[in-house]
């Protein structure tokens, strides 16, 4: 019998090639199962030593039904669908697919900035409708090297946005209370200590944060009220970090010039959502993380985290560091070859 049981929860016909490759040196059995109810999921997880999770099974009940589980790894970047607190109490390390799509998401944010800056969407509509160079489409248009970009959240993606946009030489402001001052310095950006200052000073505000108790509905009226009327708001992380009704009100009231949204509070977005009726709002269907590469990387990343934990290490992408107080000492995470 294998030493460990690794459960892929939420799929039944996955080829599991990436998972097997990452777990090749671990004496484990990999099984997959797609539960149809929470009760069924609770049965499945009982004897699992590690869980790779697709779908909505990270509830308190399911987590509490585990008996041997050391790690719960999700295939996505976001882990807001997992009850991390329950995992921490149970001594389960939560990991995600960190790094699998930071280039893609940062590209999407930059694409929104460029698209809004160059008015590409309204110009496209206008030209195709026979209105060649309507004045209202083109001006005012402030060049990026005279503009200010405000980034909220300075993890890998936020950093990549700053790095990529730097070749246009904007002024860049960053808010992230959990990042050391030296990181801002290394990236040559200005650290801002008050969220409102980002909104009042920026021409483009980009949010790139995990959704958690602290960031849920963190952005709303008080921030939109202080924006420049010529500024744009761009959200490529999670819809629920914004109070969406207040965003709609702010756009209706002309508090900002427009928005670029890859994410919404409810997804798929309601076709009657007023945001979809606004010409100054550019949208996409939560695809910022997608590319031919990131899709293939996701199972590798998720399984590599599990492999690290089963080897007795910390994973590189641990997301509930407070769990360390509830479990035994582990060795530092190390990158085993380029992972």
């Amino acid at each position, binding site marked *: 019998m294998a030493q460990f049981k690794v459960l892929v929860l939420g799929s039944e016909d996955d080829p599991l090639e990436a998972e097997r490759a990452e777990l090749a040196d671990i004496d484990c059995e990999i099984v997959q199962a797609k539960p149809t109810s929470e009760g069924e999921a609770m049965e499945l997880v009982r004897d699992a030593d590690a869980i790779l999770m697709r779908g909505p099974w990270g509830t308190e009940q399911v987590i509490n039904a585990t008996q041997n589980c050391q790690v719960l790894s999700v295939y996505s970047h976001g882990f807001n669908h997992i009850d991390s607190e329950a995992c*921490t109490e149970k001594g389960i390390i939560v990991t995600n697919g*960190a*790094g*699998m799509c*930071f*280039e893609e998401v940062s590209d999407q944010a930059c694409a929104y900035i460029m698209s809004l800056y160059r008015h590409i969407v309204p110009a496209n509509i206008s030209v195709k409708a026979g209105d060649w160079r309507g004045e209202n489409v083109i001006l005012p248009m402030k060049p990026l090297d005279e503009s200010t970009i405000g980034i909220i959240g300075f993890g*890998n993606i936020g*950093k*990549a946005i700053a*790095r990529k946009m730097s070749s246009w030489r904007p002024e860049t402001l960053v808010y*992230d*209370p*959990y*990042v*050391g*001052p*030296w990181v801002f*310095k*290394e990236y040559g950006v200005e*650290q801002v*200590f008050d969220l409102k200052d980002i909104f009042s000073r920026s021409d483009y505000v980009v949010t790139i944060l995990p959704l958690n108790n602290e960031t849920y509905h963190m952005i709303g009226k008080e921030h939109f009220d202080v924006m420049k009327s010529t500024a744009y708001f761009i959200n490529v992380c999670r819809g629920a970090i914004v109070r969406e009704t207040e965003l709609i009100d702010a756009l209706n009231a002309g508090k900002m010039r427009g928005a670029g949204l890859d994410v919404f509070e409810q997804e798929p977005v309601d076709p009657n959502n007023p945001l979809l009726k606004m010409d100054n709002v550019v949208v996409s269907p939560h695809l910022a993380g997608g590319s031919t590469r990131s899709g293939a990387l996701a199972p590798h990343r998720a399984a590599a985290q599990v492999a690290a934990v089963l080897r007795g290490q910390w994973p*590189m*992408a641990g997301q509930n*560091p*407070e769990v*360390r*107080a*509830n*479990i*035994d*000492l*582990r060795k*530092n*995470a*190390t*990158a085993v*070859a*380029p*992972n």
Partner: protein
Amino acid sequence: MAQIKGLFITASGGISEVKEAWHSLGGELIVLEEPDEGQIIEAVKDVDVAMSLGAAPSRAIFEAMDRCQGWVGFGHGYDGVDLDAAVENGIILTNTASFGTDEVSNQAMMHLLVCARKFVLHDKLVKSGVWTREHLAPMGHLPHQTIGIIGTGNIGRAVGRKAKAFGLRVVAYDPYISSWDTKEIGFEPATSINEVCEQADYLTLHTMLTEETFHMIGDQQFKIMKPTAYLINVSRGKCVDEAALIRALNDGEIAGAGLDTFEQEPTPADNPLLKMDNVSVTSHYASYSEVAFTRRITQLGEEGVRIALGQWPMSLINPAVQATIPARDPARAWGTF
């Protein structure tokens, strides 16, 4: 905000900077100037955190720390601190990482350029009245060359960024950095120290001194390095097997070295390295500038406040302690709490 109380131990001033950080948040600060161990043991019993711009903590001090949750040491290196004793007693350890990132990375680049341009030899020749170009070759063209970086923390990253500005290709090895972080930094990742040694025209070290990094560059590495390559060391002398370095230089296994640190400091006046015209030396001052040294003291106070308030510090150096004490709040940037 809860009343917090800190202990500041100093042998070299800094009192006003630390007081400023503490008083700005209403904390109380006890100052001990050049105390002995017994005085420290007494003082730590009644404070939330100890900050030291002098003495390194002993096991006996850690054992006396019941109320006291952490020890903030100055500088970067923490060789010489009893890490096991700290973890056993649930003591959070932090340094003042990053205070001198610019200075240390500049020192590395200075040594690199001094080596690349054969400055030591020519400075000596010109000043002794010899004007000649006969010792120039071989001299590399930086955009055709590779810098190999071991350790991509703040300093290693800054060195790589600056090296790129000179057109150097950057290859780096750091087993504790994730692949995506390496990618974001934009260096080519290597999978071993030896792989870096083989490729580097300039090998530069930016690691802590630990059991793992002690003598990590020695005979084996010098033998696989290019005969035209230079070793740059502004980290800790003991990361390099100095006897092996002297032998490698004498045997022409590498072309030269730029050193800010030595196995023994001050280095003895008869150290053969000091007689070599292909070796540039400085006296372990890579992190110094007035701004950096003031910053390091301010940061000492700030990290102390974080620990006293129940946060993790920004620069935790013994993560193993996380398994021995209750969960804490994440560190927040100064100015946001």
